[in-house]
């Protein structure tokens, strides 16, 4: 995930599907309708802890209000196609900050940890993370992205690329930041923390 996230509407949702292997081919069949919505990138991650759970990130050059995008048939058709009956809550926001803790080549594919939380001040959160860069790096965190929700300036989606699942689990277990950010994970509309591996990325050009 690089510069394409900037200046884009980002829609993120995670949900359980009966067969995650169908997600990618179904997305590929919808390239036209995704392009019509302004979608320029799609990323798919699959959970390492729940074999039926996927995280899907859409980067969109929004030409219409977010509510119109969410109401579009594309979303409903998509959930129907992958077999999702109960619709998940959808995070809609914009990239606030990206922090790179290392620029090393890593032999193994990293994992992505995703969580949604509520903070008093997202700028302060990012300052705090930057100030603790050495601790994040030591814990195996390679990159950190924060996204501010469009519907709530306190709501933030945090994505972290971490060396491997063991490091991710250690960070989730040991970090004071994790303890704070996870306080509302799985509560109300917020999904439980997601740990997964990158599966596919689609770039849609029009």
């Amino acid at each position, binding site marked *: 995930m690089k510069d394409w996230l900037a200046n884009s509407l980002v829609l993120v949702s995670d949900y359980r599907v009966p067969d995650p292997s169908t997600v990618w081919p179904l997305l590929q069949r919808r390239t036209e309708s995704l392009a019509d919505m302004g979608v320029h990138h799609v990323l798919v991650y699959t959970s390492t802890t729940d074999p039926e759970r996927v995280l899907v990130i859409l980067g969109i050059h929004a030409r219409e209000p977010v509510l119109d995008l969410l109401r579009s048939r594309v979303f409903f058709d998509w959930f129907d196609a992958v077999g999702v009956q109960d619709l998940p*809550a959808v995070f809609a926001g914009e990239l606030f900050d990206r922090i790179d803790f290392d620029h090393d080549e890593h032999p193994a594919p990293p994992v992505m940890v995703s969580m949604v939380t509520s903070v008093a001040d997202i700028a302060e959160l990012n300052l705090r993370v930057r100030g603790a860069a050495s601790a994040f790096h030591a814990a195996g965190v390679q990159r950190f992205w924060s996204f501010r929700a469009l519907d709530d300036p306190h709501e933030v989606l945090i994505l972290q690329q971490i060396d491997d699942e063991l490091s991710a689990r250690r960070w989730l277990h040991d970090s004071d930041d994790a303890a704070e950010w996870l306080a509302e994970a799985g509560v*109300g509309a917020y999904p439980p923390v997601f740990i997964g591996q990158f599966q596919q990325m689609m770039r849609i050009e029009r």
Partner: protein
Amino acid sequence: MFVCLCNGITSHEVAAVVDRGAATTKEVASACGAGADCGRCRRTVRAIIESRGAGRETTSAGPHRN
């Protein structure tokens, strides 16, 4: 987060009507529209009702954390 895609209702709007007394998915639907159309967001609406109910009984609404 957007809970009801049909009507564009957010989790905060649902939480607000729950805090004002809506205690079932039907009451939430009639108060703010979430779940009033296709009804496929009712599971999330129920989760919000449960989370707010537990909060009312055991804790006060605290400040946002950072």
